[in-house]
């Protein structure tokens, strides 16, 4: 896989520079991999992050109505505690900091250590862990589920709650309710290649797809033959609906997330089926997002996320946000 890059060791650094050069509303904390809003806000601060390679996540969600800081790790590697701590220090005001973490051992441990350090400095820090991926059954694994694209809904809704002036505990509670209500699952048509390794993350035959993949090029839960888009959507949607307590009459938000190389046209073909299926079940779609929100480099494939809405979540989801990758 050819890469448009210079020194592989400078990849993340140059990407971050490229982001702030394009978007002066973001600032990079000097000497760090942390992006913050150029204009600090007086409210509960939201910090998220993770490995690089998921762009526009997470820097693309920093801005009014969403995050205050995004910490970038190496490619697909959790950021280190010192970087997370820098982010916390930079954005915290009097009202505390919420860390939004995806449920991977590495992310959880590194954010946890940063939170411990920040607490020792007298900063009030809360942490929520997103585990929206229903591909992996919860019951058989004490580790819980992965956090994938549904995380973006958490950024949006917790962001709106913070912007509304809610205190840290309330923002954290709302974030947790969002996490409880969001369920996702993904499929890959082709793998991705981490720049440093140059090797595809896995091999797929021309007639195979990998069901239930994460967002780091990890293999999925099973491999199946390729089939029409509607069938693929049904496989994901069925599993999501089995896991989410979504009933006829419920309101939901839909995120059809491209993993990197899948054309938008294919995502819309998938969305057509999703909308039809939900309509058949009398589920009301309040909002649909189709595009690249949480990618896996140039992996071909997509994920579906369904967020079950209540009155408050709907209001917060629709609240204004002005970031690179999410506007409303």
């Amino acid at each position: 896989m050819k890469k448009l890059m210079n020194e592989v060791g400078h990849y993340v650094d140059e990407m971050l520079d490229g982001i702030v050069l394009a978007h002066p509303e973001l600032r990079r904390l000097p000497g760090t991999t942390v992006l913050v809003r150029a204009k600090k806000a007086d409210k509960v601060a939201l910090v998220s992050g993770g490995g690089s390679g998921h762009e526009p996540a997470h820097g693309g969600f920093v801005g009014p109505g969403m995050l205050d800081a995004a910490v970038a790790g190496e490619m697909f590697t959790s950021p280190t505690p010192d970087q997370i701590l820098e982010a916390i220090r930079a954005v915290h005001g009097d009202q505390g900091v919420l860390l939004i973490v995806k449920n991977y051992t590495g992310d959880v441990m590194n954010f946890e250590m940063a939170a411990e350090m920040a607490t020792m400095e007298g900063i009030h820090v809360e942490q929520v862990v997103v585990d929206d991926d229903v591909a992996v059954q919860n019951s058989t694994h004490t580790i819980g589920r992965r956090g994938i694209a549904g995380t973006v809904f958490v950024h949006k809704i917790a962001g709106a709650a913070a912007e509304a002036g809610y205190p840290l505990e309330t923002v954290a509670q709302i974030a947790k309710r969002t996490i409880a209500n969001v369920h996702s699952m993904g499929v890959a048509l082709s793998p991705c290649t981490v720049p440093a390794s140059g090797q595809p993350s896995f091999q797929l035959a021309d007639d195979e797809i990998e069901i239930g993949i994460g967002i780091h090029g990890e293999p999925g839960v099973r491999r199946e033959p390729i089939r029409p888009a509607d069938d693929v959507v049904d496989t994901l949607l069925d599993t999501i609906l089995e896991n989410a307590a979504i009933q006829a009459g419920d309101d939901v938000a839909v995120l059809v997330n491209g993993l990197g190389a899948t054309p938008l046209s294919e995502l819309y073909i998938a969305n057509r089926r999703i909308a039809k299926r939900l309509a058949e079940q009398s589920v009301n779609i309040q909002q649909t997002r189709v595009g690249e929100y949480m990618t896996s480099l140039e992996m071909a494939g997509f994920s579906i996320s369904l967020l079950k809405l209540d009155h408050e979540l709907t209001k917060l989801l629709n609240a204004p946000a002005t970031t690179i990758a999410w506007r409303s």
Partner: protein
Amino acid sequence: MLTTSAFVAFIQAYTNRLDELQPLLDQLDNQIGDGDHGTNMTRGFHAANERLTSTPTDDLGALSQTVAMTLLSSVGGASGPLYATVFLRFSAQWKGQSQVDAKEITEAIVQARDGLVVRGKAHVGEKTMIDVWSPAAQTLQENPTVSGLLKAATVAAEAAVGTRELVAGKGRAAYLGERSRGTCDPGSVSSAVFFEEFANVIVGGVEKTPWPTLVS
């Protein structure tokens, strides 16, 4: 018995060994994880190794602390906080000492194992580096001597190979369920190498496990 210069030599030897094994560790992690364990480890230990050379001290605690903080700020992922925890525990145990004996080494290794369990919350059998640290620490505890160190290295290597048959219950490989069986856990392999190089620096003459032929 472990002097500061031996400690520095250990970090150097371990770093060299990681360089050699990076493709293997990445490959193992590719099969059941995200393919970066070798990359993560070499990045971290190269940084630690460099830092050590530029900050000489005769305090094993300070040296361990330096390694811990460097790993913490350069590795990321799961292995960063885990290996950092190992050296943080060493540091607490060896504070102010310029050399330590087999007993003190044993105590530090046991502490490190406990620290890993606290940090990672994994149990033995869940296909993580705990599957290596636990029997190795136990071996040393039962025989806190130079020969115990050698034995621990052998036990560690066997345990790492043994992770092949396990189904992962923690870490990224756990998402694969049954599909995680059949591949050795990369963090267990890097841990076994840790014990091998550690014993070799202190005792010398340790035979190096031919990992690439053994596990791939």
